[in-house]
Structure formats: structure tokens, C-alpha cells
């Protein structure tokens, strides 16, 4: 504990140098920008900037690259709330209540609470990384294919709890999402599935393409089909003060922010789908805990505060396996390891002792970076909200333009642009029949993880599914999933028995 504080002090000494402050600012500002732009994600940005970092010293380059990563988490929520296009997978849930708040003239509080929530989560999770980091790092190793299978099953059970209307609709969309995730090369055999001879489909469907099509283009088409003026949003108040979350907003959000920070940190330690699962786990948890769950989907601020906090906490926590074990939690982290290896540094258990200035400098920079993001984002609230006042006949073509550019930039391929158009039409038709694309997207992301880990488990278990329940962590997660699934039935039985007692 004492050591960590000394280390953190040393880290501040490094992170507060003029040069590093500048790299940190550059990183978080770039991160916010790419988070806002659909298609262009942190992975592509960091890959593009990699050659620049060869000339930088290792600490500065990691400070900048990590700034891009967690900065993108802030930026991703802005488009989700304003125009209902998730900047990345972990902002999909934010679209639901965040955009609904914007439609009701409450874009300011929605953006504000997600900025403040992200800041609080960032600070809590970074302190968690500093104080508990190495001690909790082994959690990442405890999760093998069997444990991931159970975690993803739990995640899928939670997905079906999202979205309004009858459960059957969410289930249908989730099932379609699972099917969508099987398009492309078989993860084990490498044979092609559902590609219809189209070469580009061998890579599978791209999450960014789906998001831009099903959300962005579909939204524009819906606007175009609607009667003039009928889709106009309620105007937001002007001026920063009126846009910030008020006392009632804070009272409603403090619980979700606290719980989201803890949940996000815990799940963020797991490589793979931790950050994504934490965002909708938080959403489902808040709806269960709410006094009036029917407000969810109608612009409940808890539905923004919880998930946005959780995904940012998870983003910070994913640095634990990277810095303590040398394990990349996701593709972005993998690229960062590449950046370090080029500099002759191998992230791993020895990093904190061998290169304390790098280890603690980066951690301290995350605290500074989160503060910068808050300072950057809050004064810009009126600007972001003013975007909603742009007439739709101008805004809609702009959204289309960004989707086309974003889709092409993914892999310099016109095919992706075409897919965005196709999924735009599909998304529009889904809206006509009131099917929610959110469960589809979430199940799509989880489906890939599910198939891979379930088949890995079976290969390791020599074909026997017993491996899934023999391992304690995985058995516990399956039990939890069963509990969530059976909760309504259990409640019903409980009420029946209680009711029965009363009458006798």
C-alpha cells in the first residue's frame, strides 16, 4: 500500500512533465475525436500512429496511446446520445436511454452525467489499478475457455432482459445476432460459412459496419420517411448551467455510478468481452434495482449513468493484465504491446520493478488524462447539444457522409460501404416492425466469443461438455445465469406461497 503511494507519487513526477502532459492531452483529445466519428475506432487510430511512437520515449508513447484508448470511451457516448450511433460496442446500451433523453430535450444532463460518471469511474478504477493491480491480475489467468463460455452465457441471459416490449422480441433479435456472428470463417476449422462465395464475407460481419447501418443509416432513413416536423426533438435549454445534471439527476445517478465503477472494474480485469458485458450488466442491474423499471427505455438517467461508468471503469481495469502480466485484453492492447516491444520493453510481471517510471508514469497519467477529459468535455456540452439544433435536412446527409467515410476507412474496401447501406435498409425495416437492434448487436458480439470458447472448451475437454460445470468459476457463473433466468418464476412462486399463507 505504502509502496504504491510512493510509486504513484513518482509517477506524477513523470506524468506532470510538460512533454508528457502534452502527449496525454493529444492522446485524450484524439481519443474523443475518434470515439465520436463512427467507424474510425481506437484500434485503427493507434495502429496508424504507431510509427510516430517509434521516435518517442516509451513512457510518453504509452501515455499517448492509452489516452486514445480511454478517451474513445468518452467520445463513444456522445454520438450514442445525440444521434443514436454507438461509437463502439460498449456504447450500444447508452443509445437506449441516452438518445431518448436527448429526444426529450435532456441531452445536456445525459452527456454531463456520462462525462462525470466516466471521470469518477476512471479515477476509482485507476486507483484500483495502482493499489490492487498486481494482486488481482491473476483473475485474468483464472479465466480459460470454460469460464468464458459461462460468462458469455450469463451475458446472453442479461441481453434478453434489455429493451422494452415483450421478451420474445428481444429473444428473436438475440437469436438472429448469434446467427449473424457465424458468418465468415469457422473459428476452428477455417472453412467458410454463409459467405455465398463472396470473398469479403470471409472476414465475417464487422461490428462497426453493423452499428453504422442498423443505427446510423436506419435513423436517417426513418427521418426521411417521417412526416415533416413529426420527428423534431424537444429543444434543449441553452447555456452550460442549464445543461448540467441537476440535483435530482445526481441523486438518481449516484447509486448507478458507484455500482458501475465496481462492476466495470471487476469485469474489466478479464480479457475479452469484459468491458462490453459490464455495460449491459450494469444496465440490467439498475433496471432491476429501480423503483419504477418502466421508466427505462423512456429516458431514465440511471440507464446512462450506470453503463457509461461501467465501460470506462472496465477500460481502465483492462490495463491491469497488460501492465502486470503482459497480457493484452483486446486488440487495442495487443497493438500497445507491439508498440512497447518495438521499444525493447516487454510488459509483464517485472515491469513495475524494472521500469517503475513507465509503470507508475502511465498510471498517474490516466488520472491526469481523465481530469483533462472532464475539463475538455464539460465546457463543450453546449456545442454538442447545439448539434441537435442543426436542421435535419443538413444533419441527416452529414451522418450518411460520416458513415460512408467511416465504413471505407475500416479496411479501404468499398464492400464495407455497401454492407452499411444494406444493413441501413435492414435496420429501417426492423424499426417499422418495432424490433430493437440492440439485442442483435450485443448477441452478435457475444456470439463470436461464445462459439470460440465453447468449442475450445470441448477440444480441451476431449469432447466432453462436463468441463463446463466441473470448473468452480464456470459452475458458479452458470448458476448465476440460471438464477437470473428463473428469477421471474421464483418471484411468482414466492408470491403464490406467501399469498397462500395469508389466506389460511
Amino acid at each position, binding site marked *: 500500500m505504502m509502496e504504491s503511494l510512493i510509486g504513484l507519487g513518482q509517477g506524477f513526477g513523470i506524468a506532470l512533465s510538460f512533454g508528457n502532459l502534452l502527449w496525454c492531452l493529444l492522446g485524450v483529445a484524439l481519443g474523443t475525436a475518434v470515439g465520436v466519428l463512427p467507424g474510425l475506432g481506437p484500434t485503427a487510430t493507434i495502429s496508424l500512429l504507431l510509427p510516430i511512437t517509434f521516435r518517442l520515449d516509451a513512457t510518453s508513447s504509452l501515455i499517448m496511446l492509452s489516452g486514445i484508448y480511454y478517451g474513445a470511451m468518452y467520445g463513444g457516448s456522445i454520438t450514442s446520445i445525440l444521434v443514436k450511433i454507438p461509437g463502439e460496442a460498449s456504447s450500444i446500451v447508452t443509445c437506449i436511454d441516452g438518445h431518448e433523453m436527448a429526444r426529450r430535450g435532456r441531452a445536456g444532463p445525459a452527456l454531463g452525467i456520462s462525462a462525470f460518471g466516466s471521470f469518477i469511474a476512471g479515477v476509482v478504477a485507476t486507483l484500483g489499478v495502482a493499489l490492487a493491480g498486481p494482486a488481482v491480475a491473476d483473475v485474468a489467468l483464472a479465466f480459460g475457455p470454460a469460464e468464458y463460455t459461462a460468462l458469455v452465457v450469463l451475458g446472453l441471459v442479461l441481453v434478453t432482459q434489455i429493451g422494452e416490449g415483450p421478451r420474445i422480441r428481444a429473444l428473436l433479435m438475440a437469436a438472429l445476432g448469434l446467427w449473424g456472428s457465424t458468418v465468415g470463417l469457422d473459428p476452428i476449422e477455417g472453412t467458410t460459412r454463409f459467405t455465398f462465395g463472396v470473398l469479403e464475407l470471409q472476414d465475417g460481419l464487422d461490428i462497426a459496419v453493423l452499428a453504422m447501418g442498423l443505427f446510423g443509416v436506419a435513423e436517417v432513413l426513418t427521418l426521411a420517411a417521417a412526416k415533416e416536423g413529426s420527428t423534431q426533438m424537444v429543444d434543449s435549454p441553452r447555456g452550460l448551467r442549464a445543461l448540467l445534471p441537476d440535483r435530482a439527476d445526481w441523486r438518481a445517478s449516484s447509486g448507478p455510478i458507484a455500482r458501475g465503477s465496481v462492476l466495470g472494474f471487476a469485469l474489466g480485469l478479464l480479457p475479452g468481452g469484459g468491458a462490453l458485458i459490464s455495460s449491459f450488466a450494469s444496465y440490467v442491474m439498475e433496471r432491476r434495482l429501480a423503483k419504477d423499471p418502466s421508466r427505462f427505455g423512456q429516458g431514465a438517467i440511471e440507464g446512462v449513468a450506470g453503463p457509461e461508468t461501467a465501460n470506462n471503469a472496465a477500460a481502465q481495469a483492462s490495463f491491469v493484465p497488460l501492465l502486470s502480466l503482459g497480457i493484452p485484453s483486446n486488440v487495442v492492447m495487443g497493438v500497445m504491446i507491439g508498440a512497447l516491444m*518495438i521499444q525493447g520493453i516487454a510488459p509483464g510481471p517485472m515491469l513495475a520493478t524494472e521500469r517503475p517510471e513507465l509503470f507508475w508514469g502511465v498510471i498517474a497519467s490516466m488520472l491526469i488524462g481523465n481530469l483533462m477529459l472532464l475539463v475538455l468535455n464539460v465546457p463543450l456540452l453546449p456545442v454538442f447539444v447545439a448539434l441537435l439544433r442543426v436542421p435535419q435536412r443538413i444533419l441527416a446527409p452529414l451522418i450518411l457522409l460520416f458513415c460512408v467515410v467511416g465504413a471505407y476507412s475500416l479496411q*479501404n474496401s468499398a464492400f464495407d460501404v455497401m454492407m452499411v447501406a444494406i444493413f441501413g435498409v435492414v435496420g429501417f425495416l426492423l424499426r417499422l416492425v418495432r424490433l430493437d437492434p440492440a439485442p442483435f448487436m450485443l448477441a452478435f458480439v457475444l456470439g463470436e466469443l461464445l462459439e470460440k470458447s465453447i468449442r475450445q472448451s470441448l477440444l480441451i475437454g476431449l469432447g466432453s461438455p462436463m468441463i463446463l460445470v466441473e470448473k468452480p468459476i464456470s459452475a458458479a457463473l452458470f448458476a448465476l445465469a440460471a438464477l437470473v433466468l428463473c428469477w421471474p418464476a421464483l418471484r411468482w412462486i414466492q408470491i403464490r406461497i406467501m399469498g397462500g399463507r395469508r389466506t389460511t
Partner: protein
Amino acid sequence: MTDRITRRMTLAAGAALIAAPAGAQDFPTRPITLVIPFSPAGGSDLTARALVKAAEPILGQPITVVNRPAGGGAQAMQEVARAAPDGYTLVNSTAILTAIAPNMRDVPYNSATDFTPIMTYGAFNTFIAVRADSQYQTLQELLDFAKANPRVVTVGVSVIGASSHLGMARLAQDRGAQVSFVPFGGGAPAVTALLGRHITSVVVSGEVLPHVASGQVRLLATLMGERVPSLPNVPSIRELGFDWSMNSWLGIAGPANMPQPVVKRLQDAFLQASNDANFKRVMDEIAVAELRNDAAGAARIMAEDIRSFEALIKELKLGRYAAR
């Protein structure tokens, strides 16, 4: 009629004879494009970019690098195969897309006839590794156990059909052993599963080296023909009694039918560039071994690998030859 065609052809051939040397002398007179069929920041991308940077001043023209990972890289290969064979469109050619992919699935190009090899510069180092506290001290012990206990040994690899998987499969087959391959979609997650005791061993590239340095992982062998200078204690499989090795090579190629002088100019420039200090440093850091060949050498390796991988994949009944 026939006369006229012959005369026209003679004229055309004569014009080409005059034009070709002149064109080659000036070559290159405009920027060159190098297509990388993989995502940025991978081993192929990092090494090719470093090589390009060193080659630019030698050729006196900028080289634009474009990443086109679509279709597992097959789209990029097709695009270059169809490009004009003037030396201005090149591809970062690899054993994976040239010799392995066409046997695993349908691809829209013919490796043997669609390309002009220009040079090779390196090969991915591939290691067989176990945890440091594992009971297996040598590759022989691991394979012996796998022979006595079929399928019990689990081997983490990036994808089925990668040279790491094919190499280990051939090792097991040579010794009559049976192992279970578990693909993780990349080397890093496979190493994570190894550290977490979820699998027995991995066959991966440079991703494993930091964990070797920290003492958590032991390397049993490299699939390459020789020991790696930076890891003098790790035997090559040739030393361990196998009469083959596997070099997952990286190089530069262009479309088929490139003029000989242009090929020579590019070959010389890229070979000279591969002596660049920064390029060598990048190769070292990500554990790609040097494997330098001129155009003739690259063509030989390519032809050999197209043949040998086809035979191996057929024998293992994988990809297109899988029993359905």
C-alpha cells in the same frame, strides 16, 4: 491476313524490345504502391514498413503502403495479380497467402502463375513452448507423452492452418503422436491460456518471448532450420532429428510477367534495404529471423513451399482436403 498479323506482332515485339530497357533504366519514375494483405501493426506490416522506409532513398521514389486485410488478405493478392506488371504495384508476399491459404480454402488467385517473386527478407520464428513448471523438459518428452496418451496434450495455436499448427501437426505425425489443437485466433490469447494452466503447450511466434524472459515459459524448440542467435539454448527441430524445417517467410512480389530489368532493380534495392540498421532492429524486436533471397531464390522457395504445403495439408486431411 496472317501476314498482317505477323507483321504487326513483329512490330509490337520490336517496339517492346526498344521500350523495355529504356523504361527499366528510368524505373521508377513515379511512386510505387506496396499492398500489405494484413492489418496494421502485425508482424508482416511492421517489418514491411521498416523495409519500405529503407528502400525509398535507394529507389528515389516514395513507396505508398496500403493495408488491405479484407477477405483474409485474398482480396489484396487478387488485386495485385490483376495489376499492370510494371513494378509500380507490389505486394508483401507471405508463405501463408502464397502456399497455405490456397490449400485451406478457395482463393481468387493462382500463387504459382499470378506473381513475380522479387525477394524474401525474413521468416516468422515459431516456437513450441510449455510453462516453466511443466513436467516436459524437451520436445521428445512432450511427444512421447502424447504418443502414450492420445489427444490428452492440448496445443494452443493462432488458427488451424497456420504454419505453427501445420508444423506441430507434422511433428506429431512423424512421431506417431496425437495432440489436440486449440485455436485462439492469435498468439497472445494462446499464451494467456498457457499461463493460466488451461492448455499444455503453445506453438506461437514472438508473443511468447516476454514470458520466456520473465521465466514463466520454457521454449522446447524452434520450427526453423537453425537456432536463433538471440536464443542460443533453444534447439531447432532439425537438431532434434527431424529432416525438415518450416520457414514462414515474408517477401516482396509483383504481378506475373514483370520486365526482367525492373525485377532486378527492385530486387537489388530491397536487398540493399534489408541491411538497414533500423529495419534489422524492428526484425529483432518482434522475433522475425532474417531470410534473404534474391528473385531466383524467392521463386525457388515459393515453388517448393507451394508443393510441400499442398502435400502436407493433403496428408493431414485439412482445409480443402478435409473429409466431409
